[in-house]
């Protein structure tokens, strides 16, 4: 057997973005030894791409804000499909998590009285997003990274070794979780630099691997987003929920082609930017859906008044939840009112002085100037929907982040439930902090309660090693080796065209047939060269995860015969109350160890606790719930008495 480097830890965190790093901090502060394993360099995780801000009901900009309002906004944004307990914990704890970042050294933009400034964002009733210009994600990842360094400095002072309690394994990819019986026993992977194999023996693993956007062609996501955590959890026997819900961010760049999909922050609209079609018309007023009627401004004058003072008018429909805005842009382009490159216009130039734009949106200014030669202080931006975020993920216990597999935990984008069918902007960074901490806590408690540590068997290591080496063997017989780059490009095109923003049954079936074909071709995948820093081999291994996760997305999309949030079926355009309380859970079946088959099962959504249900007017709930579910609502019982 090839040589395998061995490490032993209490907790292994896979992924070094916001949720992973927050989990590390928590487990370390509870006295455990933690490894954090990341595919990239330390501090490069996808969290840096978050721009607009981190939602937390601190009430600094409008003192009427509270966790209850944040909770209600989150449920509305997700079309009431959210796991209510996660939405509750998130709304209650996000302010504390943001304040904690200041003690780590974060420098958010300030209000006049020196507190953290908060900006408007889609679906949030009050200005709620703590931010640093348009680079909030960078501030958060750097702050957490620097906090970890400071904990390592404390460990060095106490124990003589920076790595005594936290060690960062950078540019190291995990390909397999290893179990002892039913429970997690460790994780197996390889160093990207050398290709050498490594096993982490640990009774608890926290998955914090982010999303799946690299399976789509037009995406704001980086190569890292190959759904590793989703796939690892599935193969370890845990389930995924809500995989049909993919967020297409309404404003990605559309030109030049090579940058198509790169994110344009919602902060542009939060700070006053407006969407226009080729006729120069602000079209969002025509797209306020029935469920939000009455909550949004109906004239330009009212929308502009709201920007000045959000207590005296209703909010602008430019800031409807992202799913609504994406569909609206799609419809405008389809109706022939799009921009030359198939998007619509986003105008900030006519709304703000050049100095103010450069100050509030510096990254956007540079991004457009350097990549598209567009000066956004003078001209409109061309924007269109881009695959941005997966609402679906590993089904977890809300309080502890525990997945179905004992010893497995998940947090952040790779977990599912919190955002329901559509995530509100700004709720991702806060999600990372709240549930990263909770998963770290859950893993720590689990490890402390164990009476004996699980062990990693040699047989499991041999299987994992063989699987990782397979791409070098190439196809059996005389078949032509499959180029991983070609296979990847085809999968991206298929998911984009057939399981994208607008879906139909026949197209999803066509996608599923193609995925089957790709799975067969995957068996012939061939990697040239050696194991040292070989991107062709890395992609071949990541493709295994992308194929499995893409099948989940397609199968769940086919099963859900309604439209809701990030799942729009042209053949079932209505939202259906029966489907609101139905979750689709994906699991693996059969005995294909490479890319297993996926089964989709209906599960009942746990009903919301009554005091939380009472936060909403009966009339609003009636738009989402079945009659039977609302029988116990106080509004209903009053009606009767």
């Amino acid at each position, binding site marked *: 057997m090839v040589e395998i480097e061995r490490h032993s830890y209490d907790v292994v965190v896979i992924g070094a973005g916001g949720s992973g790093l927050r989990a590390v901090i928590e487990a370390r502060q509870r006295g455990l030894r933690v490894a954090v394993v990341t595919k990239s360099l330390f501090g490069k995780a996808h969290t840096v791409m978050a721009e607009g801000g981190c939602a937390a009901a601190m009430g600094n900009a409008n003192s009427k804000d509270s966790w209850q309002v944040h909770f209600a906004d989150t449920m509305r944004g997700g079309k009431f499909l959210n796991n209510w307990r996660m939405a509750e914990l998130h709304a209650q704890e996000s302010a504390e998590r943001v304040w904690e970042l200041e003690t780590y050294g974060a*420098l958010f933009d300030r209000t006049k009285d020196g507190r953290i400034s908060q900006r408007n964002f889609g679906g949030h009733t009050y200005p709620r997003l703590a931010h640093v210009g348009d680079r909030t994600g960078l501030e958060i990842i750097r702050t957490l990274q620097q906090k970890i360094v400071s904990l390592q400095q404390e460990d060095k002072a106490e124990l003589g070794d920076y790595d005594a309690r936290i060690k960062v394994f950078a540019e190291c990819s995990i390909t397999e979780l290893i179990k002892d019986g039913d429970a997690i026993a460790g994780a197996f992977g390889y160093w990207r630099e050398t290709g050498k194999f490594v096993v982490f023996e640990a009774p608890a693993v926290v998955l914090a691997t982010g999303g799946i956007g690299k399976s789509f062609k037009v995406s704001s996501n*980086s190569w890292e987003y190959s759904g590793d955590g989703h796939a690892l959890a599935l193969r370890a026997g845990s389930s995924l929920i809500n995989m049909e819900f993919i967020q297409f961010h309404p404003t990605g760049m559309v030109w030049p082609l090579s940058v198509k999909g790169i994110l344009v922050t919602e902060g542009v609209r939060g700070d006053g930017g407006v969407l226009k079609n080729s006729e120069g018309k602000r079209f969002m007023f025509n797209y306020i859906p029935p469920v939000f009627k009455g909550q949004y401004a109906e004239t330009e004058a009212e929308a502009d008044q709201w920007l000045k003072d959000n207590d005296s008018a209703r909010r602008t429909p430019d800031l409807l939840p992202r799913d609504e805005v994406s569909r609206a842009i799609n419809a405008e382009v389809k109706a022939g009112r799009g921009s030359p490159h198939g998007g619509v216009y986003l105008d900030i130039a006519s709304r703000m002085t050049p100095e103010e734009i450069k100050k509030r949106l510096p990254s956007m200014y540079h991004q457009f100037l350097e990549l598209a030669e567009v000066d956004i202080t003078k001209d409109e931006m061309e924007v269109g929907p881009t695959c941005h975020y997966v609402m679906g993920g590993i089904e977890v216990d809300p309080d502890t982040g525990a997945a179905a597999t004992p010893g497995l935990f998940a947090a952040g984008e790779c977990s599912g439930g919190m955002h329901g069918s559509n995530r509100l902007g700004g709720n991702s960074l806060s999600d990372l902090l709240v549930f990263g901490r909770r998963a770290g806590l859950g893993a720590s408690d689990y490890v402390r309660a164990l009476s004996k540590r699980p062990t990693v068997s040699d047989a499991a290591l041999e299987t994992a090693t063989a699987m990782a080496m397979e791409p070098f063997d190439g196809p059996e017989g005389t078949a032509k080796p499959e180029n991983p*780059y070609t296979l990847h490009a085809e999968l991206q095109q298929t998911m984009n065209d057939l399981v994208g923003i607008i879906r139909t049954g026949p197209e999803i079936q066509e996608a599923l047939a193609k995925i089957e074909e790709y799975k067969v071709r995957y068996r012939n995948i061939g990697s040239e060269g050696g194991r040292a820093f070989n991107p062709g081999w890395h992609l071949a291994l990541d493709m295994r995860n992308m194929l499995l996760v893409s099948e989940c997305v397609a199968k769940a999309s086919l099963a859900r015969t309604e439209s809701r949030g990030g799942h729009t079926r042209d053949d079932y355009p209505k939202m259906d109350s029966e489907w609101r309380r139905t979750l689709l859970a994906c699991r693996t079946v059969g005995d294909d160890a490479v890319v297993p088959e996926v089964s989709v099962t209906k599960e009942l959504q746990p009903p919301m606790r009554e005091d939380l249900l009472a936060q909403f007017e009966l009339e609003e709930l009636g738009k989402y719930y079945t009659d039977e579910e609302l029988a116990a609502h106080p509004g209903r019982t009053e009606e009767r008495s």
Partner: protein
Amino acid sequence: MTYEAKLRVWRGDDDGGDLRDFAVDVNDGEVVLDVIHRLQAEQAPDLAVRWNCKAGKCGSCSAEINGRPRLMCMTRMSTFDEAETITVTPLRAFPVIRDLVTDVSFNYEKAREIPAFAPPKDLQPGEYRMDQIDVERSQEFRKCIECFLCQDVCHVVRDHEENKKAFAGPRFLMRTAELDMHPLDTLDRKDMAQEDLGLGYCNITKCCTEVCPEHIKITDNAIIPMKERVADRKYDPVVWLGNILFNRTK
């Protein structure tokens, strides 16, 4: 519009390597990283390159393009003549791992040597109050995406491996200035900047500022003010006299 670009890419590892010539298609609006990716997908599947966001936000795809340290994702092909041969090489100040990927661990070691943010002990979370004007100075430095181009270009270490031990480099001198200017940091960082991080090695040629993709004024706004603070302390005659009279060593 498509044309075929002439590309010269360094291939090899820590045992050595050489420049190889390639011809690669280029489409309208593309950046160097797009062309490197096309080269990888069509001609050199094992070409090692480090990248993540392809949007100038993560600072992973640092390399030297025609000898100048740059982010590959933010360097448009249209800035070169179509007939020109474009040379892409790994960062010179760091050891090569493979092809365009270098070992940047030097930077992570230096990061650990800078004492962390130290807020007042009695200040509770949620009680922090700072004025925008006071946080802006440090905020400029926190725009840093840690691409390490400044570390690569700085002549103190670029051709002088022996200086690496005593010199933290522009990125981390700036980090010290950032903490020193943080309105709530309680540590005095002037002596450590001079003695532990090698502030004195910098002779303000501003190469770091020139290559910074975030356009941070590293020299003018971080390093020079830090040098001035150190100088105030060191050569202040009153402090000097006080040190002698009261037998203070630091």
